[in-house]
Structures are given as structure tokens and as C-alpha cells.
């Protein structure tokens, strides 16, 4: 217990004086997750909408595939990413292994199924009068799509926040594709694991606290969003 308590005090000290190692890992975790989720949102919202509104052969199988993708362990994505991006892999020439861009690519595939599945579910369950009303009022395909997204925006916000939380706190992809290189690819999650195993317990707790702080911020953001939407 003392160890944990001392770790907490040391953690606040490190955060208070903006320890460069801690801040560097925190900043990297933040921008990598934000970029991965933004890219996944661009692709995932479009795929989710198409799966919800267009009928084509194999649609059901694709929906199932994305649903299953939400439960894929991050180490598996990391392993596949490593195999693809390693020098002998098909994507080796891109030279993305052990770079932040490699982690972004891996986290993209972590966030994508979450965003696709939530968007598909929300639009599929939309009141059928939304489409009929938009259609009968003369909305073209693009405007109808914007209307669907507007009507389900709460679900999409939640999907984005959930995807961000998954990416921000994941360990497997950052460890296997990023390689946990100091000041290059180290994230909060990999730093926490490494510092703790190296006996730097206080630093590990500091990293964990930042992860916890990020998760709490997200929870507040979700609660705030839900309240704002309820008022509308």
C-alpha cells in the first residue's frame, strides 16, 4: 500500500513539473489517437452509412465482420501490422515500422470497426419516417445522408469517443508496431508497462494517472454531450 501511496505522490510531482518523459509520451498518445480516430471516422461513417442504407450482396457478412472486429485484441492487430510492415512484409517499403505513423495505421484498424458498427446500428434503427420525410420534401441523396447523420449524431459522437478511448489506452499496437522507442514511439500505455517493469513505479503510476485523467475527461465529455442533446 505504501508503494502505491508513494507512487501517487511522486506521480503528482512528475506531472506538476511537466516531466519531459511523461509529457512526451502523453502528447504522442494524444495526437496519434486523434489522428487515427479522425481517419477512421472519415472512412467508417461512410461505410456504416452505406451498410445501413444500401442493399447489396454480402452486406450481412460485412456487418458481421465489422461487429467481430470490435472484439479483436490489440496484440493481434499489432502482430498483423508488424508482419505487414516489417522489412520482409508486403508493406515493408513504406518504412512505417517503429514509427508513430505505423501506430496510427494500426489504431485506425482498431477504431474502424467501432465507428462502422455504431454508425450502421444507429442509421439502421432510425425512424423510417426520417428517410420518407426527407425524400418527400425533395432532399437529394447527399442531403438525405446528412440528415441521417444529423439525426443519429449522438450515437456517432459516442462511437468517436469510444474509439478514441480504445486507441488512447491500447498497448498491443503501440508496443508491437511502435516498438516503445524513447522520444519516438513511446506512448502512455507502453511507458507505463515499461517503467513499472523497470522498477520506476512512481513514473509508471504517473503515466497511469494521465491515462485515467484522459478516460475521466472522456466520461465527462460524454455526459456533457448527452445532457446537451437531451436539452435539444
Amino acid at each position: 500500500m505504501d508503494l502505491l501511496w508513494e507512487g501517487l505522490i511522486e506521480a503528482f510531482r512528475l506531472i506538476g513539473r511537466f516531466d519531459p518523459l511523461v509529457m512526451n509520451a502523453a502528447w504522442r498518445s494524444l495526437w496519434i489517437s486523434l489522428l487515427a480516430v479522425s481517419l477512421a471516422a472519415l472512412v467508417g461513417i461512410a461505410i456504416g452509412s452505406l451498410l445501413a442504407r444500401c442493399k447489396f450482396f454480402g452486406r450481412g457478412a460485412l456487418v458481421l465482420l465489422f461487429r467481430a472486429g470490435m472484439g479483436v485484441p490489440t496484440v493481434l492487430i499489432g502482430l498483423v501490422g508488424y508482419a505487414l510492415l516489417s522489412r520482409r512484409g508486403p508493406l515493408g517499403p513504406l518504412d512505417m515500422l517503429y514509427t508513430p505513423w505505423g501506430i496510427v495505421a494500426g489504431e485506425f484498424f482498431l477504431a474502424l470497426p467501432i465507428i462502422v458498427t455504431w454508425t450502421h446500428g444507429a442509421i439502421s434503427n432510425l425512424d423510417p419516417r426520417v428517410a420518407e420525410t426527407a425524400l418527400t420534401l425533395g432532399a437529394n441523396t447527399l442531403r438525405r445522408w446528412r440528415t441521417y447523420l444529423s439525426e443519429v449524431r449522438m450515437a456517432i459522437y459516442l462511437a468517436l469517443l469510444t474509439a478514441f478511448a480504445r486507441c488512447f489506452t491500447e498497448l498491443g499496437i503501440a508496443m508491437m508496431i511502435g516498438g516503445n522507442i524513447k522520444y519516438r514511439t513511446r506512448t502512455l500505455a507502453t511507458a507505463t508497462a515499461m517503467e513499472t517493469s523497470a522498477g520506476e513505479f512512481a513514473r509508471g503510476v504517473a503515466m497511469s494517472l494521465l491515462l485515467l485523467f484522459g478516460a475521466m475527461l472522456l466520461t465527462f465529455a460524454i455526459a456533457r454531450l448527452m445532457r446537451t442533446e437531451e436539452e435539444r
Partner: protein
Amino acid sequence: MKPTISMRHNVTVQPVSEKPLIAAKDLAVKKQGTTICHVPELTITAGERVGIMGGNGSGKTTLLRVLAGLEHDHDGICQVATEPRERVFVHQAPYLMRGTVLFNVAYGLAARGVATAERNASAHSWLAQLGVDQLDDRRIANLSGGERRRVALARAFCLSPRLLLLDEPLADLDEAGIETVSAAIASLENTTVLISSPIPLPDGLVTRTVSIDSIEGMPAASLD
């Protein structure tokens, strides 16, 4: 020669063009093997305001949906001489999009590329005619049933469609509301209006009525 229209209720006589806007013959819609709407013959000319009469489950709403182009799976002939964009259907329980009343009323005009100032002016004008212009910046979640109904009607009216299909437009309205909405419907020029509505309809709301009763084993549609 200007045609006159036979009337069941106390209604105004309105000249209409000869060419039928809607022509249906042996129109039948089946769901799970049961006929839910059957109209042996229906002809409506442009400019008419027709009230569709029938009991619960007689297929009034289904008929309106077929005419609106929202229901494609039917037997028989159903010809509507307007583009789908020129038909507007208002649901029995209208759906209003998230946002303000003004956003909702101007939605169709925005979809047609009408400039913001022009569409807002039109939306305000129709909201005023329907007695709800004070609600323009109100969020739709804060509207009563009658207010929602009037907003949905204003949204349809400001498009001036050639064919307006209204499913129970007077539901949820109080006496004053019924009077206001009826006057607004009666003022629509060059628009054919079909109303599925409870009996009795207010005087002057329709130019004639059509009765349908499509439940299997019951008398087929009859026309005035």
C-alpha cells in the same frame, strides 16, 4: 365548359382542369397475403381537394403512400402525372428533424436550392398563416402535438407542391387550430390535396369526398 364537382358535404365549387392528375384502376396493396388497400377506380383532376373517407384499417394511409411514391409494391394501375419532387406527403404522426422550427419549415426549400433569405421569408409567412410564427426559433423537442402538426404542415405548404397528400392533418388540433389549418388548406391554389381525415370534415375543406373500404369481404371503394 367549366366542370362542376358533385359534393357530399357542404363544400365550395372549384373549377378544375380536365386532365386527370391521378388515375388508378384495380389498385391493391397486399401485406402478408392480406389486402390492406383496394381501390377499384379513382380519378382526380388537378386542383381538386379530395377527402378520402373510410374506417380504421380501410387503407386510407396506404393509398396516400402509394400516391406519394413511398409504397411501390402494389397491383393494378396507379398513374400520377407529377414528378415525385412535386408531391409532398405529411405523415399521420409527422416527423420533425432535430433543430429549430425554422430549420424544419425551410428544409424542403433548402433541398430545392432556394436562397436562405427567400426560404426564411416563405417559412415565416406560412408559420404566420398557421398561427405559429412565434415558435420559429423554438427547438422541436419543446413543441406540443398541435404545434408539431402545424409546423409539419407549414413545411409542406411552403413548397407549393402540385400534389399534397395529408394524412389526418387535423389530428391533435384544437378548434381554433382546425379552423386556421382548414383555411390555409382551402387557400392553396393550383395544388391538389388529398386528405385522409376523420368525419366530419370542416365545411369548405374539400371539394368532394371518396370512400374506400378495402378490408376483404367488405364493400369495395365507392366514389362520389
